[in-house]
């Protein structure tokens, strides 16, 4: 079986991130794992929210949009709980090296997830607004853009789970295409506004939804950058000369 040694590679990376043997370190590892699993559960809920919000937007489904908006409160509560746990770990264990990187990354991913959930709510609200304009043609490009942004979030979180730096770089690279699609959607919406003055309001809602989707993709990029920092200890944020990114671009 070629097996690509997925398990072995994963185990090695995990071993690198949790190499401490002392009793205190064991406690830290246990707490880290618990918080990590909480974040993964949270991420599953956030992914579902994005999915529902985009469905509510494109298929104009009011009940689905309401579900998304109702879910946000629970996400906020969980985000605060995870952050409190992380702060407690910082104060109690004062982790260093790989543990510190992992903990800070978890805090940042937690924050990004909460922001993504807020943006999903924004999209759901815009979807509710757009239901009142059934004749307004929501740009089809928005559907592709939403699918790409959703895939970026999913892959960013997959990279976080599997400590997959390659996948994280691919997520960063995908952001350019989502940005380009956002520009095209805005152009299309502007054209619609010029064509029909009655469509100015729904066009602005579409514009807002498009912007939210683009921001979701940006947060997915943040998650991917945090993963690279956690595994390699290198900050690639704002680093446009990164050889890996340049090779992907070429």
């Amino acid at each position, binding site marked *: 079986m070629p097996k690509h040694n*997925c*398990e072995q590679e994963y185990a090695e990376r995990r071993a690198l991130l949790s190499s401490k043997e002392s009793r205190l370190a064991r406690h830290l590892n246990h707490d880290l794992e618990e918080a990590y*699993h909480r974040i*993964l*559960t949270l*991420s*599953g*809920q956030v*992914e*579902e929210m994005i999915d529902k919000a985009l469905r509510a937007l494109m298929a104009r489904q009011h009940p689905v949009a309401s579900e998304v908006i109702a879910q946000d409160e629970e996400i906020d509560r969980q985000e605060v709980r995870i952050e409190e746990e992380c702060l407690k770990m910082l104060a109690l264990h004062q982790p260093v090296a790989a543990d510190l990187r992992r903990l800070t990354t978890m805090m940042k991913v937690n924050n990004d997830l909460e922001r993504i959930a807020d943006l999903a709510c924004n999209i759901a609200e815009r979807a509710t607004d757009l239901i009142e304009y059934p004749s307004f043609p929501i740009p089809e490009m928005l559907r592709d853009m939403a*699918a790409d942004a959703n*895939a970026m979030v999913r892959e960013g*979180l997959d990279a976080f*789970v599997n400590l997959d730096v390659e996948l994280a770089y691919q997520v960063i690279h995908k952001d350019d295409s989502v940005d380009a699609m956002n520009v095209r959607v805005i152009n299309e919406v502007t054209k619609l506004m010029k064509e029909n003055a009655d469509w100015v309001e729904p066009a602005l809602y579409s514009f807002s939804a498009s912007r939210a989707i683009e921001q979701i993709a940006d947060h997915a990029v943040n998650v991917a950058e945090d993963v690279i920092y956690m595994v390699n200890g290198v900050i690639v944020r704002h680093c446009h000369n990164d050889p890996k990114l340049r090779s992907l671009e070429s």
Partner: protein
Amino acid sequence: MKLFIQLVALWIVLALGVGMFGGQVVEDIWRREMEASFRRDMVAAEAMVESLSWSKPPEAQPEWRKMEHELGLGIIPVQRSKAPESMELIWTQAGQEGMRLTADVALSEFPETTQANTIRITRDVQLSSLDDLWWSLWALLNLAALAIGGLTFFAVWHDLGRKKRLLRPWFQALDSAEERESLLPAVEPQDSDFCIQMDAVADLVNRIYASLKNANERSDLVLGNLREGVLAVDDHSRVLLSNKSLRRLLELPNDNFLYRPLVEIIRTPAIVNMLRKILSEEVLTEEQLEYGVEPRHLRILGRPLPLGEGKSGALFTVRDETLIKRVDMIKKDFVSNASHELKTPLAAIRAYAETLQMGALEDPDAAESFVNNIISQADRLDGLVQGMLQLSRVEVGSALNYQRFDVIAAIEPCINAAYALGRAKGVTIEVNAPEAAKIHSDRDGLQTIASNLLSNAVRYTEAGGKVAVHVERQSTQLVLEVRDSGIGMAEEDLARIFERFYRAEKDRSIDTGGTGLGLAIVKHLTGALGGSVAASSELGKGSCFVVELPNEPLGNVE
């Protein structure tokens, strides 16, 4: 390390042994050496004494003193009652740290002036020279032992792989008592009880291993070929087992994820919540969800999985119900569409009848018009029922009656009917067909196909439009093409027009008079006759339907 400690211990034992017994040996060697040297000097002294003139007492002669100094001896003439016959060496103590070696030698020519017949030769030896020799040898021995130990250590560790083989017996001898015991089977005879029992144990282990391996392979085979996805999770939410179908249905990479926490693999809240509920409450749970990039309808059943020792995990089975859902949806659509199609003419008939009842009967002109409308709606209802019955017969396959016939003659009534319809509507009909084209197929079936396609083409073409019919008998098949310049269809409608009651105009605002079953009947009939039908269309420009039917029934082709 162990070897090194052993070498040091060996060296200490050797050093102590040399310290204890080496002193005596060294002293013997030293005494023998001293005696040999004394004998040599003594012979020289005797020769020199005999060469003296003895004219005056020897002590007074300068040669005597010189001789004593050169040879390091004390030489004294002594008077003995009897001259010694042979030389005898005597060791005596001389002071605290010295020894004296004495020997008497009889002179052959004894000078009368001295009154002596013997010379006594003595040599004093300091014991410190013996100590020096002893410590020198001791140091040399230690150095040699160290050097040998170091060389052995270096040689063993420098090329351990090769040396180990060569030195194995020695290593084994140096090993601990338990390890030495493990060597016993090697020296046991092969037919001993011990060896026979060991062979039996080895055979048993091999048999158990092989049967376990087979059982494992069998269960992998069964699980791998199940259409349902199977996932087992332990009490700590770690994956114990997952099969190929599960990975396919949940779009997971091809890995077995053994002992990885489930939440790292599947983050879907519905599944995570199911797991939490099963582990905490040990109850059966069931979920239906749309999953994946191209959504599949999955039914997930979760139940507690007893793991022994009071522990309980969770077992999930995942079933793909996408097809079932689709069939269900089609069935619902059919009932809804059929009832709608039946209800519309019935409602019209009822309305006309009520109007007549309410007094329209008194007006002969209106009454006639209403009755005509009632008859028209009844005809539509009849057409609908006939269409449904025909579709049902075609699906069952009982409606086919194979015979050899002329296609042109068969479809002529259909073309004439289309002419009549087209003339009334202002649509031109063009026919391009050969004189005659005989095929072996179902005549009524072909007529139904042609009339449905032609009536549709005329119905959806506006006044001034054109419908072209082209018939061609090729070597193996008959091609019937109906092309119109009508309203056409969008691409998404084109994929669904052969479904029952499907209409491209969603709001049914255009009453074309059709039943919505025509194209479904065409598709099923061509399929039953072994042919095919294809449609192409462009919105606003027209549509084209091409039917291909085999010239001979599929079983009769030579």
